[in-house]
Protein backbone atom coordinates (compact mmCIF):
# COMPACT_ATOMS: atom_id res chain seq x y z
CA UNK A 1 0.00 0.00 0.00
CA UNK A 2 1.46 3.33 -0.94
CA UNK A 3 0.83 6.48 0.99
CA UNK A 4 -1.15 9.29 -0.65
CA UNK A 5 0.50 11.92 -2.84
CA UNK A 6 3.42 9.75 -3.79
CA UNK A 7 5.25 11.25 -6.74
CA UNK A 8 7.03 8.77 -8.93
CA UNK A 9 10.71 9.38 -9.61
CA UNK A 10 11.45 11.53 -12.67
CA UNK A 11 11.99 9.44 -15.74
CA UNK A 12 15.60 9.21 -16.76
CA UNK A 13 16.75 10.31 -13.32
CA UNK A 14 17.41 6.79 -12.11
CA UNK A 15 20.74 7.64 -10.60
CA UNK A 16 19.37 10.43 -8.49
CA UNK A 17 17.10 7.95 -6.70
CA UNK A 18 19.73 5.25 -6.72
CA UNK A 19 20.19 3.42 -3.46
CA UNK A 20 23.35 1.68 -2.33
CA UNK A 21 21.47 -1.60 -2.65
CA UNK A 22 20.52 -0.71 -6.23
CA UNK A 23 24.09 0.25 -7.01
CA UNK A 24 25.45 -2.97 -5.53
CA UNK A 25 23.32 -4.92 -7.99
CA UNK A 26 24.07 -2.66 -10.94
CA UNK A 27 27.81 -2.80 -10.33
CA UNK A 28 27.73 -6.56 -10.34
CA UNK A 29 25.42 -7.13 -13.27
CA UNK A 30 27.34 -4.85 -15.60
CA UNK A 31 24.78 -2.06 -15.71
CA UNK A 32 27.09 0.39 -14.09
CA UNK A 33 30.77 0.84 -13.37
CA UNK A 34 32.23 2.47 -10.30
CA UNK A 35 33.87 5.07 -12.50
CA UNK A 36 30.52 5.95 -14.13
CA UNK A 37 28.77 6.06 -10.81
CA UNK A 38 31.39 8.37 -9.38
CA UNK A 39 31.30 10.61 -12.45
CA UNK A 40 27.53 10.92 -12.17
CA UNK A 41 27.78 11.70 -8.49
CA UNK A 42 30.39 14.42 -9.03
CA UNK A 43 28.41 15.81 -11.96
CA UNK A 44 25.40 16.18 -9.72
CA UNK A 45 27.54 17.92 -7.14
CA UNK A 46 29.01 20.21 -9.79
CA UNK A 47 25.52 21.25 -10.79
CA UNK A 48 24.07 21.93 -7.35
CA UNK A 49 26.84 22.48 -4.86
CA UNK A 50 27.17 26.20 -5.24
CA UNK A 51 23.55 26.54 -4.21
CA UNK A 52 23.31 23.71 -1.73
CA UNK A 53 26.64 23.83 0.13
CA UNK A 54 27.31 20.09 0.28
CA UNK A 55 31.09 19.81 0.17
CA UNK A 56 33.94 21.49 2.03
CA UNK A 57 36.54 19.60 0.06
CA UNK A 58 36.49 17.05 -2.74
CA UNK A 59 38.90 14.21 -3.35
CA UNK A 60 38.30 13.83 -7.09
CA UNK A 61 41.68 12.36 -7.94
CA UNK A 62 41.95 9.81 -5.17
CA UNK A 63 38.29 8.89 -5.56
CA UNK A 64 38.70 8.32 -9.29
CA UNK A 65 41.74 6.16 -8.66
CA UNK A 66 39.80 4.18 -6.10
CA UNK A 67 36.88 3.73 -8.50
CA UNK A 68 39.19 2.60 -11.25
CA UNK A 69 40.76 0.05 -8.92
CA UNK A 70 37.31 -1.25 -7.98
CA UNK A 71 36.37 -1.60 -11.65
CA UNK A 72 39.58 -3.49 -12.31
CA UNK A 73 38.85 -5.82 -9.44
CA UNK A 74 35.30 -6.48 -10.63
CA UNK A 75 36.62 -7.05 -14.12
CA UNK A 76 39.07 -9.59 -12.75
CA UNK A 77 36.17 -11.49 -11.22
CA UNK A 78 36.81 -10.34 -7.65
CA UNK A 79 34.30 -8.87 -5.28
CA UNK A 80 36.08 -6.00 -3.51
CA UNK A 81 33.55 -5.70 -0.70
CA UNK A 82 29.91 -4.88 -0.02
CA UNK A 83 30.48 -1.14 -0.43
CA UNK A 84 32.75 -1.55 -3.45
CA UNK A 85 32.48 1.45 -5.76
CA UNK A 86 29.85 3.23 -3.65
CA UNK A 87 30.53 6.97 -3.47
CA UNK A 88 30.30 8.08 0.17
CA UNK A 89 31.03 11.42 1.80
CA UNK A 90 32.45 12.04 5.25
CA UNK A 91 31.30 14.79 7.62
CA UNK A 92 34.22 17.12 8.12
CA UNK A 93 34.68 16.48 11.81
CA UNK A 94 35.80 12.94 11.06
CA UNK A 95 39.40 12.59 10.00
CA UNK A 96 40.50 11.20 6.64
CA UNK A 97 43.97 10.80 5.19
CA UNK A 98 43.00 12.94 2.22
CA UNK A 99 42.77 16.66 2.61
CA UNK A 100 42.34 18.62 5.81
CA UNK A 101 39.77 18.10 8.55
CA UNK A 102 38.39 21.50 9.47
CA UNK A 103 35.28 20.96 11.60
CA UNK A 104 34.04 23.87 9.46
CA UNK A 105 35.94 26.18 11.76
CA UNK A 106 38.73 28.69 11.70
CA UNK A 107 39.76 27.37 15.11
CA UNK A 108 40.52 23.68 14.67
CA UNK A 109 44.23 23.04 14.41
CA UNK A 110 44.58 21.42 10.99
CA UNK A 111 47.45 19.37 12.35
CA UNK A 112 45.03 17.32 14.45
CA UNK A 113 43.49 15.51 11.46
CA UNK A 114 46.86 15.11 9.84
CA UNK A 115 48.03 13.32 12.95
CA UNK A 116 45.06 10.94 12.93
CA UNK A 117 44.88 9.91 9.28
CA UNK A 118 41.76 7.83 8.71
CA UNK A 119 39.35 7.52 11.62
CA UNK A 120 38.49 3.89 12.35
CA UNK A 121 35.07 4.30 10.69
CA UNK A 122 36.70 5.64 7.53
CA UNK A 123 39.17 2.74 7.43
CA UNK A 124 36.28 0.34 7.77
CA UNK A 125 34.38 1.93 4.87
CA UNK A 126 37.44 1.79 2.68
CA UNK A 127 38.09 -1.81 3.63
CA UNK A 128 34.56 -2.57 2.42
CA UNK A 129 35.46 -0.98 -0.92
CA UNK A 130 33.81 2.42 -0.54
CA UNK A 131 34.98 5.37 -2.62
CA UNK A 132 35.47 8.38 -0.35
CA UNK A 133 34.43 11.40 -2.38
CA UNK A 134 35.23 14.24 -0.02
CA UNK A 135 34.48 16.08 3.25
CA UNK A 136 31.00 17.35 3.80
CA UNK A 137 29.75 20.53 5.40
CA UNK A 138 28.82 20.46 9.04
CA UNK A 139 27.78 22.99 11.61
CA UNK A 140 30.93 24.33 13.22
CA UNK A 141 32.31 21.67 15.57
CA UNK A 142 29.03 19.79 15.07
CA UNK A 143 26.94 22.33 16.94
CA UNK A 144 24.88 25.46 16.31
CA UNK A 145 23.70 27.08 13.10
CA UNK A 146 25.43 28.68 10.10
CA UNK A 147 27.15 32.04 10.43
CA UNK A 148 27.14 34.10 7.21
CA UNK A 149 30.05 36.15 8.58
CA UNK A 150 32.35 33.14 8.36
CA UNK A 151 34.00 31.92 5.13
CA UNK A 152 32.18 28.60 4.80
CA UNK A 153 29.28 27.40 2.66
CA UNK A 154 25.74 27.73 4.01
CA UNK A 155 24.00 24.36 3.63
CA UNK A 156 20.57 24.58 1.98
CA UNK A 157 17.72 22.16 1.84
CA UNK A 158 17.39 20.80 -1.71
CA UNK A 159 13.59 20.57 -1.32
CA UNK A 160 13.39 24.32 -0.73
CA UNK A 161 16.62 26.26 -0.85
CA UNK A 162 15.27 29.02 1.41
CA UNK A 163 15.37 26.44 4.16
CA UNK A 164 18.15 25.06 6.27
CA UNK A 165 19.21 21.42 5.91
CA UNK A 166 19.12 20.96 9.64
CA UNK A 167 22.32 20.03 11.46
CA UNK A 168 24.84 19.33 12.28
CA UNK A 169 25.46 16.67 9.59
CA UNK A 170 24.17 19.12 6.99
CA UNK A 171 26.31 18.20 3.98
CA UNK A 172 25.61 14.51 4.45
CA UNK A 173 21.91 15.32 4.57
CA UNK A 174 21.63 17.41 1.45
CA UNK A 175 24.36 15.48 -0.32
CA UNK A 176 22.37 12.26 -0.16
CA UNK A 177 19.08 14.01 -0.85
CA UNK A 178 20.46 15.67 -3.97
CA UNK A 179 22.17 12.52 -5.20
CA UNK A 180 25.70 13.89 -4.95
CA UNK A 181 26.60 10.88 -2.82
CA UNK A 182 24.80 7.58 -2.19
CA UNK A 183 25.45 7.75 1.50
CA UNK A 184 27.74 9.26 4.06
CA UNK A 185 28.82 9.52 7.66
CA UNK A 186 27.20 11.87 10.08
CA UNK A 187 27.51 12.26 13.83
CA UNK A 188 24.76 12.60 16.41
CA UNK A 189 25.06 14.06 19.90
CA UNK A 190 21.59 15.55 20.29
CA UNK A 191 20.11 14.77 16.88
CA UNK A 192 22.72 15.71 14.30
CA UNK A 193 22.18 12.65 12.11
CA UNK A 194 18.44 12.50 12.55
CA UNK A 195 17.54 16.15 12.08
CA UNK A 196 19.24 16.65 8.70
CA UNK A 197 17.86 13.25 7.70
CA UNK A 198 14.42 14.51 8.68
CA UNK A 199 14.61 17.90 7.03
CA UNK A 200 16.25 16.56 3.84
CA UNK A 201 13.96 13.55 3.54
CA UNK A 202 16.55 10.81 3.84
CA UNK A 203 17.25 7.96 6.27
CA UNK A 204 19.81 8.19 9.06
CA UNK A 205 20.72 5.94 11.97
CA UNK A 206 22.07 6.85 15.37
CA UNK A 207 23.11 3.41 16.63
CA UNK A 208 23.38 2.42 20.29
CA UNK A 209 26.01 4.51 22.10
CA UNK A 210 29.29 2.64 21.81
CA UNK A 211 28.20 0.49 18.84
CA UNK A 212 30.30 2.39 16.29
CA UNK A 213 33.77 3.53 17.39
CA UNK A 214 34.11 7.30 17.53
CA UNK A 215 37.85 7.68 17.66
CA UNK A 216 39.29 9.99 15.03
CA UNK A 217 36.29 12.30 15.32
CA UNK A 218 36.38 15.75 16.91
CA UNK A 219 34.37 15.33 20.12
CA UNK A 220 31.32 17.36 21.04
CA UNK A 221 29.93 15.42 24.01
CA UNK A 222 32.03 12.45 25.07
CA UNK A 223 29.21 10.55 26.69
CA UNK A 224 26.70 11.35 23.92
CA UNK A 225 28.54 11.30 20.58
CA UNK A 226 27.72 8.71 17.92
CA UNK A 227 28.97 8.28 14.34
CA UNK A 228 26.40 6.79 12.01
CA UNK A 229 25.25 6.19 8.43
CA UNK A 230 22.96 8.47 6.41
CA UNK A 231 21.61 7.21 3.09
CA UNK A 232 18.40 6.85 1.09
CA UNK A 233 16.99 3.88 2.95
CA UNK A 234 17.06 1.73 6.05
CA UNK A 235 18.49 -1.07 3.95
CA UNK A 236 21.32 1.18 2.87
CA UNK A 237 21.96 2.15 6.48
CA UNK A 238 22.12 -1.55 7.33
CA UNK A 239 24.67 -2.14 4.57
CA UNK A 240 26.79 0.68 5.95
CA UNK A 241 26.33 -0.39 9.56
CA UNK A 242 27.66 -3.84 8.68
CA UNK A 243 30.93 -2.13 7.81
CA UNK A 244 30.94 0.39 10.66
CA UNK A 245 29.84 -1.50 13.76
CA UNK A 246 32.10 -3.29 16.18
CA UNK A 247 34.43 -2.75 19.10
CA UNK A 248 37.72 -0.91 18.73
CA UNK A 249 40.11 -0.28 21.62
CA UNK A 250 40.91 3.20 20.34
CA UNK A 251 37.50 4.37 21.58
CA UNK A 252 37.15 4.29 25.36
CA UNK A 253 33.36 4.26 24.97
CA UNK A 254 33.22 1.40 22.49
CA UNK A 255 31.40 -1.65 23.81
CA UNK A 256 32.40 -5.23 23.32
CA UNK A 257 29.01 -6.49 22.23
CA UNK A 258 29.08 -8.85 19.23
CA UNK A 259 27.93 -7.37 15.94
CA UNK A 260 25.48 -9.07 13.58
CA UNK A 261 24.57 -9.05 9.93
CA UNK A 262 22.19 -6.10 9.99
CA UNK A 263 20.71 -7.14 6.63
CA UNK A 264 19.76 -10.62 7.72
CA UNK A 265 16.56 -9.63 9.48
CA UNK A 266 15.16 -7.32 6.79
CA UNK A 267 12.34 -9.61 5.72
CA UNK A 268 9.58 -7.04 5.49
CA UNK A 269 7.48 -8.78 8.12
CA UNK A 270 6.42 -7.01 11.32
CA UNK A 271 3.91 -9.63 12.49
CA UNK A 272 3.73 -10.02 16.20
CA UNK A 273 5.56 -6.80 16.99
CA UNK A 274 4.08 -4.28 19.37
CA UNK A 275 5.04 -0.70 18.54
CA UNK A 276 4.48 2.13 20.99
CA UNK A 277 3.61 5.50 19.49
CA UNK A 278 4.16 8.73 21.37
CA UNK A 279 2.99 11.61 19.17
CA UNK A 280 4.79 14.05 21.50
CA UNK A 281 1.88 16.47 21.31
CA UNK A 282 2.50 19.66 23.19
CA UNK A 283 6.23 19.08 23.46
CA UNK A 284 7.18 21.69 20.85
CA UNK A 285 6.43 25.44 20.76
CA UNK A 286 4.75 24.93 17.38
CA UNK A 287 3.54 21.90 15.49
CA UNK A 288 2.86 21.36 11.82
CA UNK A 289 -0.53 19.63 11.45
CA UNK A 290 0.86 17.64 8.53
CA UNK A 291 2.91 15.71 11.10
CA UNK A 292 -0.19 14.20 12.62
CA UNK A 293 -1.73 13.32 9.27
CA UNK A 294 1.51 11.58 8.36
CA UNK A 295 1.59 9.73 11.67
CA UNK A 296 -1.94 8.46 11.08
CA UNK A 297 -0.80 7.04 7.76
CA UNK A 298 2.25 5.48 9.39
CA UNK A 299 0.05 3.67 11.88
CA UNK A 300 -2.02 2.28 9.01
CA UNK A 301 1.07 1.08 7.19
CA UNK A 302 2.63 -0.56 10.21
CA UNK A 303 -0.61 -2.22 11.15
CA UNK A 304 -0.90 -3.50 7.61
CA UNK A 305 2.57 -5.00 7.97
CA UNK A 306 1.41 -7.03 10.94
CA UNK A 307 2.39 -4.87 13.90
CA UNK A 308 0.16 -3.75 16.73
CA UNK A 309 0.47 -0.04 17.41
CA UNK A 310 -0.37 1.22 20.89
CA UNK A 311 -0.15 4.64 22.49
CA UNK A 312 2.67 5.19 24.98
CA UNK A 313 3.98 8.15 26.92
CA UNK A 314 7.73 8.59 27.15
CA UNK A 315 8.79 9.21 30.76
CA UNK A 316 10.77 12.21 32.00
CA UNK A 317 10.61 13.99 28.62
CA UNK A 318 11.68 17.47 29.71
CA UNK A 319 14.14 16.16 32.28
CA UNK A 320 16.04 13.90 29.91
CA UNK A 321 16.18 16.56 27.25
CA UNK A 322 17.62 18.88 29.89
CA UNK A 323 20.12 16.19 30.85
CA UNK A 324 21.30 15.89 27.24
CA UNK A 325 21.65 19.63 26.99
CA UNK A 326 23.57 19.98 30.25
CA UNK A 327 25.84 17.07 29.38
CA UNK A 328 26.62 18.06 25.81
CA UNK A 329 27.21 21.72 26.62
CA UNK A 330 29.45 20.95 29.56
CA UNK A 331 31.50 18.29 27.82
CA UNK A 332 31.90 20.60 24.85
CA UNK A 333 32.96 23.51 27.00
CA UNK A 334 35.64 21.42 28.71
CA UNK A 335 37.06 20.74 25.25
CA UNK A 336 36.73 24.29 23.91
CA UNK A 337 37.46 26.44 26.95
CA UNK A 338 41.06 27.38 26.11
CA UNK A 339 40.14 28.29 22.51
CA UNK A 340 37.02 30.19 23.58
CA UNK A 341 39.19 32.26 25.88
CA UNK A 342 41.76 33.13 23.27
CA UNK A 343 39.77 33.03 20.01
CA UNK A 344 36.17 33.83 20.91
CA UNK A 345 35.43 35.85 17.75
CA UNK A 346 36.87 33.21 15.42
CA UNK A 347 34.07 30.88 16.39
CA UNK A 348 30.67 31.11 14.71
CA UNK A 349 28.24 33.22 16.69
CA UNK A 350 25.95 30.29 17.60
CA UNK A 351 28.83 28.00 18.53
CA UNK A 352 30.43 30.40 20.97
CA UNK A 353 27.22 31.47 22.67
CA UNK A 354 25.90 27.91 22.74
CA UNK A 355 29.01 26.23 24.08
CA UNK A 356 29.92 29.24 26.23
CA UNK A 357 26.55 29.00 27.94
CA UNK A 358 27.87 25.90 29.69
CA UNK A 359 29.19 28.25 32.35
CA UNK A 360 25.64 28.24 33.66
CA UNK A 361 26.05 24.67 34.87
CA UNK A 362 27.80 23.57 38.04
CA UNK A 363 29.65 20.32 38.44
CA UNK A 364 26.77 19.11 40.57
CA UNK A 365 24.31 19.93 37.76
CA UNK A 366 26.35 17.71 35.47
CA UNK A 367 26.49 14.88 38.00
CA UNK A 368 22.77 15.20 38.58
CA UNK A 369 22.14 15.05 34.85
CA UNK A 370 23.99 11.72 34.80
CA UNK A 371 21.82 10.46 37.67
CA UNK A 372 18.73 11.44 35.73
CA UNK A 373 20.07 9.60 32.69
CA UNK A 374 20.35 6.49 34.79
CA UNK A 375 16.81 6.93 36.13
CA UNK A 376 15.64 7.47 32.55
CA UNK A 377 17.34 4.33 31.29
CA UNK A 378 15.53 2.29 33.90
CA UNK A 379 12.19 3.95 33.18
CA UNK A 380 12.48 3.45 29.42
CA UNK A 381 13.68 -0.12 29.85
CA UNK A 382 10.51 -0.66 31.83
CA UNK A 383 8.47 0.79 28.97
CA UNK A 384 10.25 -1.55 26.56
CA UNK A 385 8.88 -4.48 28.52
CA UNK A 386 5.49 -3.67 27.00
CA UNK A 387 6.59 -2.75 23.46
CA UNK A 388 9.25 -3.94 21.01
CA UNK A 389 9.80 -0.58 19.33
CA UNK A 390 8.85 3.02 19.95
CA UNK A 391 7.96 5.53 17.23
CA UNK A 392 7.66 9.28 17.42
CA UNK A 393 7.89 12.14 14.96
CA UNK A 394 11.56 13.10 14.55
CA UNK A 395 10.50 16.74 14.62
CA UNK A 396 7.24 18.65 15.11
CA UNK A 397 8.18 21.06 12.33
CA UNK A 398 9.52 20.45 8.85
CA UNK A 399 12.27 22.97 9.13
CA UNK A 400 13.21 26.63 9.35
CA UNK A 401 14.23 29.25 6.86
CA UNK A 402 17.91 30.11 6.96
CA UNK A 403 17.08 33.78 7.51
CA UNK A 404 15.15 32.84 10.64
CA UNK A 405 18.02 31.03 12.29
CA UNK A 406 19.63 33.06 15.03
CA UNK A 407 20.74 31.15 18.03
CA UNK A 408 17.89 28.68 17.68
CA UNK A 409 17.56 28.60 21.41
CA UNK A 410 13.78 28.30 21.42
CA UNK A 411 13.64 25.98 18.49
CA UNK A 412 15.32 22.95 19.99
CA UNK A 413 12.08 21.99 21.62
CA UNK A 414 10.65 21.13 18.20
CA UNK A 415 13.32 18.53 17.54
CA UNK A 416 12.61 15.28 19.32
CA UNK A 417 15.97 13.61 19.11
CA UNK A 418 18.11 14.57 22.12
CA UNK A 419 16.06 12.46 24.52
CA UNK A 420 17.57 9.30 23.01
CA UNK A 421 21.14 10.56 23.31
CA UNK A 422 20.65 10.80 27.07
CA UNK A 423 19.66 7.14 27.11
CA UNK A 424 21.84 5.61 24.39
CA UNK A 425 19.13 3.69 22.52
CA UNK A 426 19.40 3.15 18.73
CA UNK A 427 17.16 5.54 16.76
CA UNK A 428 16.42 5.65 13.03
CA UNK A 429 14.97 8.66 11.21
CA UNK A 430 13.18 8.05 7.91
CA UNK A 431 10.82 10.05 5.69
CA UNK A 432 7.06 9.63 6.22
CA UNK A 433 5.49 12.33 4.09
CA UNK A 434 5.53 16.01 3.27
CA UNK A 435 4.37 19.28 4.62
CA UNK A 436 3.08 20.96 1.51
CA UNK A 437 3.75 19.68 -1.99
CA UNK A 438 7.05 18.01 -2.77
CA UNK A 439 8.90 19.77 -5.60
CA UNK A 440 6.76 22.82 -4.96
CA UNK A 441 8.52 24.06 -1.86
CA UNK A 442 7.05 21.42 0.43
CA UNK A 443 9.35 19.90 3.00
CA UNK A 444 9.83 16.30 4.16
CA UNK A 445 8.42 14.94 7.40
CA UNK A 446 10.20 12.24 9.34
CA UNK A 447 9.43 9.29 11.57
CA UNK A 448 11.76 8.16 14.32
CA UNK A 449 11.96 4.46 15.22
CA UNK A 450 13.68 3.52 18.47
CA UNK A 451 14.64 0.17 19.93
CA UNK A 452 16.20 -1.29 23.02
CA UNK A 453 20.00 -1.01 23.26
CA UNK A 454 21.80 -3.06 20.60
CA UNK A 455 18.62 -3.90 18.66
CA UNK A 456 19.65 -2.12 15.48
CA UNK A 457 18.51 -5.16 13.51
CA UNK A 458 14.93 -4.80 14.68
CA UNK A 459 14.89 -1.04 14.22
CA UNK A 460 16.22 -1.37 10.68
CA UNK A 461 13.77 -4.19 9.94
CA UNK A 462 10.87 -1.92 10.84
CA UNK A 463 12.26 0.90 8.72
CA UNK A 464 12.93 -1.40 5.77
CA UNK A 465 9.49 -3.01 6.01
CA UNK A 466 7.88 0.45 5.96
CA UNK A 467 10.00 1.45 2.97
CA UNK A 468 9.06 -1.68 0.98
CA UNK A 469 5.45 -0.46 0.85
CA UNK A 470 5.97 3.31 0.69
CA UNK A 471 7.94 5.56 -1.64
CA UNK A 472 8.83 8.62 0.41
CA UNK A 473 12.44 7.56 0.57
CA UNK A 474 12.92 7.30 -3.20
CA UNK A 475 11.47 10.71 -3.95
CA UNK A 476 14.05 13.25 -4.96
CA UNK A 477 13.93 17.02 -4.96
CA UNK A 478 13.90 18.70 -8.35
CA UNK A 479 17.64 18.96 -8.80
CA UNK A 480 18.46 22.37 -10.26
CA UNK A 481 20.36 22.50 -13.54
CA UNK A 482 21.14 18.84 -13.64
CA UNK A 483 22.72 17.40 -16.72
CA UNK A 484 20.44 15.01 -18.58
CA UNK A 485 20.45 11.47 -17.33
CA UNK A 486 23.87 10.10 -18.13
CA UNK A 487 23.70 6.55 -16.91
CA UNK A 488 25.29 4.23 -19.40
CA UNK A 489 23.63 0.93 -19.96
Amino acid sequence: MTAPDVVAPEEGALSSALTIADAQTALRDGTLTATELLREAYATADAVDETLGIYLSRFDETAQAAAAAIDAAFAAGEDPGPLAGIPLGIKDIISTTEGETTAQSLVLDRAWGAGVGDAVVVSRLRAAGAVITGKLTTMEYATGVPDPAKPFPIPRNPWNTDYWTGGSSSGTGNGVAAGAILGGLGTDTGGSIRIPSAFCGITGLKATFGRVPKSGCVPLGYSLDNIGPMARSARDCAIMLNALAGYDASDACAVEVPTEDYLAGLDGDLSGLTIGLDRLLGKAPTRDPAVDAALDAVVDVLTGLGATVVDVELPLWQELNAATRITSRSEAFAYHAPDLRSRWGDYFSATRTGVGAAIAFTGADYVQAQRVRRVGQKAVASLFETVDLIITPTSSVAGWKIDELDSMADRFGAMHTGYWNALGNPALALPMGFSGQPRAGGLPLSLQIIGRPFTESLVLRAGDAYQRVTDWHVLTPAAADRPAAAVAS
Partner: protein
Amino acid sequence: MHSIEEEFGNQLDLALESNGLTPLPEDRAALLKAFSTGREQAALVFSVAEARYEEPDLIFSASLS
Protein backbone atom coordinates in the same frame (compact mmCIF):
# COMPACT_ATOMS: atom_id res chain seq x y z
CA MET B 1 15.63 44.93 44.24
CA HIS B 2 17.01 43.47 41.05
CA SER B 3 14.79 42.03 38.40
CA ILE B 4 15.30 38.44 37.32
CA GLU B 5 16.86 39.75 34.10
CA GLU B 6 19.34 41.91 35.97
CA GLU B 7 20.20 39.06 38.30
CA PHE B 8 20.87 36.70 35.43
CA GLY B 9 22.90 39.42 33.81
CA ASN B 10 25.02 39.75 36.95
CA GLN B 11 25.43 36.02 37.27
CA LEU B 12 26.36 35.76 33.62
CA ASP B 13 28.97 38.48 33.97
CA LEU B 14 30.49 36.80 37.02
CA ALA B 15 30.51 33.44 35.31
CA LEU B 16 32.12 34.86 32.16
CA GLU B 17 34.79 36.55 34.21
CA SER B 18 35.63 33.56 36.35
CA ASN B 19 35.86 31.42 33.22
CA GLY B 20 38.11 33.92 31.46
CA LEU B 21 35.69 34.58 28.59
CA THR B 22 35.34 37.95 26.83
CA PRO B 23 32.37 37.82 24.47
CA LEU B 24 31.40 40.40 21.86
CA PRO B 25 28.50 42.78 22.49
CA GLU B 26 26.44 41.07 19.79
CA ASP B 27 26.63 37.80 21.75
CA ARG B 28 25.07 39.07 24.93
CA ALA B 29 21.42 38.42 24.15
CA ALA B 30 22.08 34.85 23.07
CA LEU B 31 24.31 34.20 26.09
CA LEU B 32 21.76 35.61 28.48
CA LYS B 33 19.02 33.47 27.01
CA ALA B 34 21.22 30.37 27.03
CA PHE B 35 22.37 31.04 30.59
CA SER B 36 18.87 31.46 31.97
CA THR B 37 17.63 28.44 30.02
CA GLY B 38 20.56 26.55 31.44
CA ARG B 39 19.54 27.33 35.01
CA GLU B 40 16.01 26.12 34.17
CA GLN B 41 17.45 22.91 32.79
CA ALA B 42 19.55 22.45 35.93
CA ALA B 43 16.43 22.92 38.04
CA LEU B 44 14.62 20.34 35.90
CA VAL B 45 17.20 17.64 36.48
CA PHE B 46 17.16 18.37 40.19
CA SER B 47 13.41 17.97 40.25
CA VAL B 48 13.56 14.29 39.35
CA ALA B 49 12.47 12.72 42.61
CA GLU B 50 13.47 9.21 41.61
CA ALA B 51 17.09 10.32 41.31
CA ARG B 52 17.32 10.90 45.05
CA TYR B 53 19.26 7.72 45.67
CA GLU B 54 20.35 6.93 42.13
CA GLU B 55 24.00 6.44 41.31
CA PRO B 56 25.10 8.30 38.15
CA ASP B 57 26.79 6.62 35.21
CA LEU B 58 30.05 8.49 35.02
CA ILE B 59 31.88 7.31 31.98
CA PHE B 60 35.25 8.18 33.37
CA SER B 61 34.87 5.82 36.27
CA ALA B 62 34.99 3.06 33.69
CA SER B 63 38.56 3.93 32.88
CA LEU B 64 39.82 3.35 36.42
CA SER B 65 41.83 0.23 37.22
